[in-house]
Every structure is written in structure tokens, then in C-alpha cells.
């Protein structure tokens, strides 16, 4: 962390709730600030998403940050919903940045199992 770099207040969970409710879309200034912090940093080790089957299955990946070295798949972390993947990356970054585990209210799946998020409404 650079000196004077903006930090996230781990006690302020409103931006987390907002992101969980709408991972992609219009964000409040508070959530934008959190996202800008979480998305900063160098490319080495940065999370990405690897598509395993189009519109069906994705895996968590990490960029190498090294030219010519492809992203690695993080073993055992797969998704059947892209917004779930987006939330999982957010959660991992938020917890790493703040050194704080999110409380149980943020556990569990993002969407009810019947929700179709693969198509237009996304």
C-alpha cells in the first residue's frame, strides 16, 4: 500500500450491500470509491474470469502480469453465473484489502437458483 493511498473503512458495509445488490451498473459515489481502490494495483496476481463454457460456466483466474505467461485458473473456484463471479472477486478483494472477513449476512448465493442471468437482463 502506498503512503497516502485511500483506504476502505471495514466498518462501512453499505457499499458492500450495494455492490451485492447490483454488481454491474450505476454505483453510488461511496461504492465507486471502494471499487477504484479494489481495482487498483499491478497486473500480477490480479483476478480475472476464465470462460469454460460460453454463457454457462466460468472459473476464477489470476493474471500473471508477465508478458507471455497466460492467466492461471484458481483451482476449484467455478461459477455458473457471471454476477456471482463478480461478487466473489469483490468479496476476495475487499477482505484482502481490509484484512476483515465480511459478516455472515454476505454469505450464500447472490441469486436465487431459478434466476436466469445469462441473457438480456444483465
Amino acid at each position: 500500500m502506498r503512503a497516502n493511498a485511500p483506504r476502505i473503512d471495514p466498518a462501512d458495509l453499505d457499499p458492500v450491500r450495494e455492490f451485492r445488490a447490483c454488481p454491474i451498473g450505476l454505483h453510488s459515489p461511496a461504492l465507486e470509491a471502494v471499487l477504484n481502490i479494489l481495482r487498483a494495483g499491478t497486473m500480477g496476481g490480479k483476478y480475472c474470469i476464465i470462460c469454460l463454457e460460453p454463457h454457462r460456466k466460468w472459473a476464477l483466474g489470476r493474471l500473471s502480469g508477465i508478458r507471455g505467461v497466460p492467466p492461471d485458473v484458481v483451482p476449484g473456484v467455478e461459477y455458473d453465473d457471471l454476477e456471482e463471479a463478480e461478487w466473489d472477486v469483490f468479496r476476495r478483494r475487499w477482505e484482502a484489502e481490509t484484512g476483515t472477513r465480511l459478516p455472515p449476512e454476505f454469505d450464500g448465493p447472490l441469486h436465487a437458483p431459478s434466476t436466469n442471468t445469462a441473457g438480456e437482463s444483465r
Partner: protein
Amino acid sequence: MKTLLGYADQISVTAGDEIAFRVSSETAETYDATIVRIVNGDLNPAGSGYREEDVPGTAWHIQGRPQKIHAGSCIVVDTAVPLERLAAGWRVTLLARPTLPDSSGQDGTGQVMFSLRDRVSGGGMEIGIKGEEGAYVTVQGSQARVTCAAGVPMRRHEWYRVRVAFDAAKGELTLSQAALESCAGIADSADVTVACAVEPAWTSAARIIIAARATAEGENIFGGFYNGKLEAPCLLDHAGAVIGQWDFSIGIDGQDICDQGPFHLHGHTWQMPGRAMTGHNWNGSIRAWQDAPEQYGAIHFHEDDIIDAGWATDFAWQVPSGLKSGLYAARLRSATDEDYIPFVIRRAAGTGHAPLVFVLPTASYLAYANEHLAIDAALAERVHDHVPVFGASDVFLAERREFGASLYDRHSDGSGIMISSRLRPVLNMRPKYQSWLGGTGSGLWQMNADTHIIDWLEHEGFDYDIITDEDLDREGVKALSPYRCVMLASHPEYVSTRMLDALAAHRADGGRLVSLGGNALYWRVVYHPTMPGVMELRRCEVGNGWITDPGESCHAFGGEYGGLWERIGRPPHETLGSGFIGQGFDKCTYFRRQADSYNPRAAFIFDGIEGDIIGDFGLIGGGAAGIELDRANSAKGTPLNTLVLARSEGHTNTYLPSTCALLINYAGQGAAQSDLVRAEIVFFETAEGGAVFSTGSIAWSGSLSHADYDNSVSRMTGNVVRRFIDPAPFELPASAARPVSF
């Protein structure tokens, strides 16, 4: 994992032409090939469904073989050197401006600036740079080698004069590395002499290679590529008489390399290094290389330049008559992979023509070819406000850099990639491909996004032909003149002068223009005059991903000044009624009808459309308004009789002004806080009885098929196309002058 990769020798063919397909089966598997017509390349289950149609009678079963790509540029001198003149010794001088001076080359054996060696035995000499050792010269004898190195590293982006001499009688090898401008506290110049009892073991087969060395792997397989600029290499004999003196300021716009010496040791460039590059003597007063070529005597070489993969042909196909004009592909399938090699079939001359022509923007496909932005650049996630998603092709390209990158990417030395080519597999120019740039939902971009338009044209039953940018650039208005209406695609961002001229001439002839995309006709590009499928971009003034260095804003191909058409003096607003204003890439939104839409002149456009909201649905980001947006601006050339029919709203703060629209930074530029970044649907009639309709949004085409094609976006597009192919002339309004609200 990608194991099948291919490209075709052509992008546009017609009945009777033969098209050749070049394939690498990385695992040497057999594969089946079939020609298919691509109707809809979108795999999204929420869409209208992927659709391709087999062309009967096209089936090949082929034993595949791996074919390699050997990236890296250099100069090959074609003529044998009079080695007898070098028996007593020799000297070489050159100027070098290294861009990766810390590197000892891809395999650690040096970045070779000048070599004269036997390809097989390696006997001869080479001059290069090697990280901390700085410049070196090596004499390779039959049994032993001697190297003389400066011992001090070069600084990046600084010019050096390198001189070497071999004296056979004295048995001495001398090297001088001299910075043209010294830097206080840094010792980067040196003069070194070492004893050298070894003589170069070259034979009459030895050839001069500049910026690389010959290898035993093959006649056109080189190694030890140099990164940076070289200028004025000169080979002299022991007495100082010139043997070869290469002047790169001659023939800047071509691939030939001219030797001014007495033996005519001419050469040619390999994999097209950058020419029209400022030399050591560029003084800042010259902006165009044609005005003072002597200040542009440098060539910039890269270890990762790739223009032509040079693969052998696996199979060829003679296009039969009677096939519908369209987007086609050779579909390759093996046990482990599938690939598509796309191309266009044009309607054959003399067989009539449709009233409508859809121009497939293959220049823009080339600009984005094998784009690595989200792999290389940290900006990607912030540009589109979500985590990048990579498919198998992206992961493959991240590892296999020899397949080259796009005109948004940088070479390994950090310089911008200025030349792109389709003579290599272009993995993001494919049906089924999803791009991180394509917003949420289908995630389509460029060619695959344009299949949404083809799918719609097919569903609506329009009679249309397809041509490519290459056809337009080569033939000019002749390619358009048979057609009453020209249709532009989702993102035809890159156009040449000849393409713009053709569109202007078509309009002057009463033609009509429908633009179904966003950020169109934005950057100038230049196609290579003799190598079809090779294109250059000088990204000057504002840049994007990278920017040209000072003094290097004119294309090597033909010399035209590069950059934005708006800055060149032909803004897209003149042609389309609107021009690029900003971009987002997360969610797309909708348009709201404006007062102009109720003008009787626009009644035909809104026939059957109810309500004020247009396109609040779609496969690209969930709406018809998004990704990259254009709006009207009379100050930039939007005709004063333009009707602004609808304007987008509801964008997120990820939508920000384009750099050309942004003359100063200020807070609150995000589209949720500012109303600057909006798409506008515009319409105007031309004085010649034609008309122009532009949607100003890349996402538009993703909404066409919504609700089984029965929706406001489809209806509006159909209303426009039906009227635009109707020969009845449009009439200018009685008074073109109107209050300028844009």
C-alpha cells in the same frame, strides 16, 4: 485449449476466385473442413440463436500439421558480400537507439544489430547489444570465437554510435560505444580492444542480416532480434573503403533497402519493421518525413513484429457461382478444437446487384486483431466496470505472443504497434467469439457483433450484398455505386482516405447511408499499397493505448498524416451527422425520442413505433444505447438540417468523454453526473436526393432481434432501410437553417 488455428490468403472473394486456407494443427490432429455461411455468431441462449449454413459440396478431411509463426523483424541483404575484400580486416559503423537495452535478447544470446554469418555454421561476425555488457562484436571462427564488449550498458531511448574494427594482421578486435549525448554521472561510452587470433569462418554463403542473425533452422528463420532504432549501418574494408552503406531514408514507403556502396548490396525488410522513424539528427522542425527524409534515416525493429505468418496452404477452394453474397468461413473441426476462418463472398460482376450493400468493416477488425488490452493493461477493468472475462482464444494469445497483437497494444519494448495484418490467425475475428469489450450479456465486438446485423437482414428478408473495407479501399466508389443504400456496421472506427472519398462520392451521386453503430469513421488508417490485408495506423495527437512519438505522425505507407479524421479536417459528423463523444462498456441503456422525431420529415422513421423510449432491451449490455456513443455537433460538421431524433440517457459513470472531446479535465465528467456523453440518433437529407441515418451507438445491433425481431429498434431500422432503398429522391427541407441545438 486452442489447437486449430488458421487464416486465409484473402478476405473478399467472388465466384471463380480461389481462396487458400492455411492451418496449424498444433497437435498434428486430422481435421474436417467445411465452408459455411455465417448468419448469426452469437451463442447467447437469450438471443435468436447461433446460425450457420453449410455450403454443399465443400468437405475436406485433412491430416493437420503444426505450423509455426516466427515473429521478429530485420533486414535481409540479398546479395553475396565480396568477402575477399574483408580478408585483411573490416570495420562496421552504425547508429543505434535501443528500446530494450537491459535485454540480452529472447534467448540470452544478444540482440543483434548487424551480422555477416554463414546460416548453417554460424561462422562470421555479429555486432549487437547484451544487457550490462552494452555493445559487443563477436568473431566466430571455425573452432573458436572472440568477443569484444563495451562493458557498460546503454541507456534506453538514447542514440549511440557504435564502431567496430577487426585487424587480421594485428589480431585485434576493437569496439567503440559512444553516446551522442552524455548524461552526467553515467558512464555509458567505452573504447575496448581485445586480442583476436580468430578469423571469421564465413563462406560465400554468408549473408548480411541487419537487426537479427541467420539461423540454421531455415533460410527465412532468424534469431537474436534487436529492439530499437538502427540507422546508417556501414561496412568498410580494412583500408576504410566502403563495401556497403545502407541508407534507410531511401524508399521509406517500401520494403526495399538501398545500398549506396559500390557492390549494390541491396536488401529488403522482413516482417515489416517501422519505417518513417525519426533519426539521430531529427531536429524537431520537421513533421512529415517527405519534407526531410534525411532526418528519417532510422528503422525501428521489434522482436515481435509479425506481418505474414507465411504458412503453407492446407486446402483451397474455388468459389462456385450462385452463392449468396455474405459472410462465410471455413469451419475447421478436429477431435479437440474448432476454428473458423472468415471471408466475404461478393456478388459476381455482371450478375446484378441488391439495392443495399453492407460494408463489413474489416479495417476495424484489423485494428482490433488479437487485442491484448485486458491481459496487458490495468485499465481494462476500470474501462468497463467489471472483471474481464477471457475465453480460450484470449488465454492462448496471452501465451503465444508470436501471433501478434492489435493496434491498441504495444510491442515488448513498449512502443505502439502501428501495423496490423490478417495474414496470421486473428482469433477475435470469428463467429462465437466473446470479447471483454462487448458489454454484459452477449459480449460481442466487431465481426461477431456485426453478425447481429446480418441475422436481422436475413430475418427481414432484405436483398443485400456484402463487401469489405478492403474492397472499398481498393475500388473506391465503384464498389458502392451499384447500390442505392450503404449500410455501415456496429463499429467502423478505422477508415482510409479512399474509403471516405468513396462514401462522399456515393453521397454526391444521391446515395443513402445507414450507420448502425457507434464511433464510426474516427481514425485514419492506410492500407499497404501492394500487400493486401496489411494496414498502418499512426495514432498521433490524442493517442489511445499509445501515442506516436514526436515527428512520427505521418504513415510510412504513402506519407499521409495520421490521427483522428476530426483533426485531419474530415470529422465523421460531416458524413454521418454525428461523431464519437464517449464510451462506457458496462451496461447499455435506451434512447428517448426528442422533439425532432415528430417532424413530418421523420414520420416514416417512426411509423408503427409507440412511446418515447426506444431500445430499453438488448443482448449487448441490455440496451440499444451503449458501449461507444456518437452525438451531433454542428461545430464539427453535422449538417444544419439534421434532425436529432432521439437521445440516450441513464448511463453510468463508467461512460466518460472521449479524449478528443475532452480539452480539459474537470470533476463530474461521468455520464450519471454530466449530460455530455449521450448517443443521438440523427437523420438528414442530402442536396443530391439522398439521406443519412445514424444510430450513434455500438449496442444498437444487439437489440434488433429482441422479442422475435418485433421491437422498436428493429422497426425503426427497417423503416429507414425500406425508405432508403426506395429510388424516390429525398427533398431538402424548405429552410435548412434552424436553431442549432447541438
